[in-house]
């Protein structure tokens, strides 16, 4: 019988992403219930030292695949390597972050393995028969589906910020296994020519703990600096509603909503956002929602935990100053 819960660790230039640590932390709790080993799988180039970084978060075993062909993520090479490993070791579940990499890799890998997959999950637990079941938002978060795989292994991508990161246990020891990368030549047909990373020092929208978003009430692209100043004080990411994106005030990659990014931060501050159902679909799972809007009838107030009826151009700079005072 398939044994083991695998977490595919996502790293970039030897920097491990938070979502991978979140998955290890939650994976540890699941593994303790069934006695499954928790395995961290790390693919990359010169990544051997990462084994020591992931172990304190709960890994029983670390599988390292160190190869220069894996330095940058490519769909083909990563699929090729993981497919072989999974076929060999037969884990019961393989979990990835629902990140750009996870969203690309997991479906391809699932098809290669001929197995099922649950996308963008916001919950997971074992049922009575020790099958992992997943809770996932559908219709942009307007409903949830509980899904279960009919065979093992099952793959899943988990939405960042869903689970907390456990305190690292530095005394923990894990078995480290080095595997060689076997990449089928047909999996090397796509070439990464260039990677351009935005210069922004702000956190990535989908992983941010705090997001400050502006909508139609922003009135123009030049006004986003008000939100940016506030974001930089509290370490937030800046987001936008569809109305603001469609008006051309801010790039599409900042859009939160059903046709944009789905986010789940601890704090979401909506400024000049009316709260169209489309937008709510993308941020409704935020833990605390704050709304600042001059229209007292705006729908966003119906779900905001805290609201201020007022002009965002007045309120946000004042709020920024208050945040500065909090230090």
């Amino acid at each position, binding site marked *: 019988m398939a044994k083991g819960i695998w977490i595919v660790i996502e790293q970039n230039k030897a920097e491990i992403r938070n979502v991978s640590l979140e998955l290890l932390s939650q994976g540890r709790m699941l593994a303790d219930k069934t006695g499954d080993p928790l395995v961290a799988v790390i693919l990359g180039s010169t990544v051997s030292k990462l084994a020591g970084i992931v172990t304190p978060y709960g890994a029983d075993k670390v599988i390292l695949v160190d190869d220069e062909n894996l330095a940058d993520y490519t*769909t083909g090479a990563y699929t090729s390597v993981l497919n072989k490993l999974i076929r060999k070791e037969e884990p019961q579940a393989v979990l990835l972050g629902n990140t*750009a990499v996870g*969203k*690309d890799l997991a*479906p*391809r890998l*699932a*098809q*290669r393995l001929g197995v*099922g*997959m*649950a*996308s*963008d999950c916001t919950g997971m637990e074992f049922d009575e028969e020790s099958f992992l*079941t997943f809770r996932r938002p*559908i*219709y*942009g*978060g*307007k*409903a*949830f*589906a*509980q899904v*279960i*795989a*009919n065979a093992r292994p*099952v793959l899943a991508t988990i939405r960042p910020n869903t689970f907390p990161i456990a305190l690292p246990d530095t005394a923990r020891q894990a078995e480290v296994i080095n595997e060689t990368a076997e990449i089928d030549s*047909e999996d090397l*047909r*796509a070439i990464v*020519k*260039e*990677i351009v*990373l*935005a210069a*922004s020092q702000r956190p*990535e929208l*989908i*992983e941010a703990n705090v997001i400050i978003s502006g909508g139609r009430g922003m009135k123009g692209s030049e006004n986003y600096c008000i939100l940016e100043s506030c974001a930089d004080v*509290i370490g937030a990411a800046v987001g936008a509603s569809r109305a603001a994106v469609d008006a051309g005030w801010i790039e*599409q*990659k900042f859009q939160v909503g*059903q*046709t944009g990014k789905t986010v789940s931060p601890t*704090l979401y501050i909506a400024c000049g956002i009316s709260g169209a*159902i489309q937008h709510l*679909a993308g941020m409704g799972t935020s833990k605390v929602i704050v709304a600042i809007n001059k229209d007292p009838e705006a729908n966003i107030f119906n*779900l*905001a935990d*805290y*609201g*201020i*009826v007022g*002009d965002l151009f007045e*309120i946000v700079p*004042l*709020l920024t100053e*208050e*945040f500065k005072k909090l230090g």
Partner: protein
Amino acid sequence: MDIVVCLKQTFDTEAKIVLNSNGKIDGTGVNLIMNPYDEFAVEEALKLKEKFGGQVTLVSMGGERVTESLRTALAMGCDEAVLIQDPDLESPDEWVTAEVLAKAVSKIPYDIILAGRIAVDDGSGQVAIRLADALKIPSVNCIIKLEVEDGKAAATREIDGGTELIEVRLPAVLTAQKGLNIPRYPSMMGIMKAKKKEIKGMTLADLGIGAADLPRKMSITKFSLPSPRKGGIKISGEAADAAKELARILREEAKVI
């Protein structure tokens, strides 16, 4: 250049979701639209067709009403459509859909397969990538720019924190992200012409697939609706006082700052 576009019909993004007495998603009276991301795929296919010539064929799976979305895409300028409809395709999972689409697509000449990066209903974002694997061709996910030349595609895709330029030899599957283009409206002339274009119906038997070939890998055990959020506290008073109070609450009570 022949292009296949995978198209899905979805609920309108404005639709309210309710469950029926069986606990399933209730589609009664819901306005159905072409998946918004598939519109970008259709537009990109039409732009490629305008540049290189060739046929744009739509492939979809679903019920009779899917013809409405297919007609819209035909009115935008696609050439023909295939609709796979079969009672044994009730509640397909992503694996089933990919396998069936792969069979259907392999009967059509193609250099590029385009699809939306995600469907706004199930939000799984799996099928197009699975299709590429089933067809043993490369895929580039979530593209925001595309250039095609000499049998190669240079596709810029969105990654976390930036973009990535991928070069891939055709044929390949490309999934469209918002920003790739601005979909055209179907013109009046296009609408009049669309009714003369063929929507070819196909069943599993036509594709040489038996119902037993399609065991579901995933099952949905339950649907639920999110517990509605309630409006909370409105902080009143002068702007300066309200801002101060909000900052205090976020720090001391909500403990999120």
